[in-house]
């Protein structure tokens, strides 16, 4: 009995020390991690939207669009749609949004820069934990996401699903989730009336952003 008590106490001591160490380090690092995440998001936003109007410093205003909120509670990234303009001119030149999709082994978050006519200008993968060497190759632009540039919502389908985008070999699930999540985002934004000229210019190739910028 006395021995069991001693063994139990030692085990408790070990877990107590471990829990205290974890709590202490977490309280120190959690705020720094949050800042790093925010910085990374800002940096990604600046980089992805640079294609809309190269060389200009851009202004970002958050818009809230119903239906685009992050559907997965496990992700803490809550940016919905951001309107881009070139100060001091406040007219919008495009949007940035994050598309969330359930991939093979993670929720893939893709940041997308969209022209005013609803065509894709640039994309970057914000977060993924797909299979290394396979689905994780989604972060290499030439594998898949470069094929998105200039496309509009109706063209966003994999070849296997009846569209014209070739999936990454061996990674249909990852390719499909990224493609479908972006299409879904574009459709929601289109329904919300964000793409002013989507009706008249859907069939023609995407125009340079600066020209489309006046309303």
């Amino acid at each position: 009995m006395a021995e069991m008590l001693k063994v139990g106490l030692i085990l408790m001591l070990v877990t107590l020390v471990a829990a205290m160490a974890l709590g202490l380090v977490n309280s120190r690092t959690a705020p720094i991690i949050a800042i790093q995440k925010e910085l990374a998001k800002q940096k990604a936003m600046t980089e992805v939207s640079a294609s809309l109007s190269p060389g200009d410093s851009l202004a970002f205003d958050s818009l809230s669009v119903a239906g685009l909120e992050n559907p997965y509670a496990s992700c803490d990234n809550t940016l919905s749609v951001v309107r881009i303009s070139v100060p001091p001119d406040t007219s919008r030149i495009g949007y940035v949004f994050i598309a969330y999709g359930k991939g093979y082994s993670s929720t893939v978050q893709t940041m997308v820069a969209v022209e005013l006519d609803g065509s894709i200008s640039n994309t970057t993968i914000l977060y993924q934990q797909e299979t290394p060497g396979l689905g994780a190759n989604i972060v290499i632009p030439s594998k898949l996401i470069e094929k998105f540039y200039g496309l509009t919502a109706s063209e966003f389908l994999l070849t296997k699903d009846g569209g014209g985008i070739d999936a990454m070999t061996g990674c249909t699930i990852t390719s499909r989730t990224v493609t479908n999540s972006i299409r879904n985002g574009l459709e929601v934004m289109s329904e919300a009336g964000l793409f002013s000229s989507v009706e008249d210019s859907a069939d023609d190739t995407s125009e340079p952003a600066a020209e489309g910028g006046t309303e």
Partner: protein
Amino acid sequence: MSLIKDLTKGIYHENPVFKLVLGMCPFLAVTTSVENALGMGAAATFVLICSNFLVSLFRNIIPSKVRIPCYIVIIATFVTLVDMVMNAYLPDLHRSLGIFIPLIVVNCIILGRAEGFANRNPVLNSIADAIGMGIGFTLAMVVLASFRELLGNGTWLNFNILGSAYQNQPLLIAILAPGAFILLSFILGFSNILEQRKGGRQ
């Protein structure tokens, strides 16, 4: 037992993957490219050294009845601490190694070495053992990853070796999960043949 012997035995004679067949989960999962193999190897070696050090240090305090739960707590705590500190202060490194960190917890080489070596050997020998096992694990992963990356993607450490013509139609199965098992069985078989020949000569 000399320190040198503890250091070198993990590299070949007691190689954790090819001889002890430990750590198969991360071994099969991340050997899709040489870069991943090196990243996982470095991260696992680091945790292995730290956990062997701590387990060896406390080996006379921890009662043998609860040693396994204690080791698990020590290893899991350590991995989580590394994850948090890296995430806060080295975000770029964390981004490239991030996927490996949770996998280290399930790496039974670490628990295996705590139980099989560190809990009955002095601190310095345990650290030597951890370094040797870490190198052995990394080398084994690089061997399998080299085959898988070369056959499945035509590259080695991201350098294009077999040309873009091959890359358009690679032997994709090598990089997929079945390829890992097939190639691993070839490597284990080859290593057994070597062992048998050596045994026959004695």
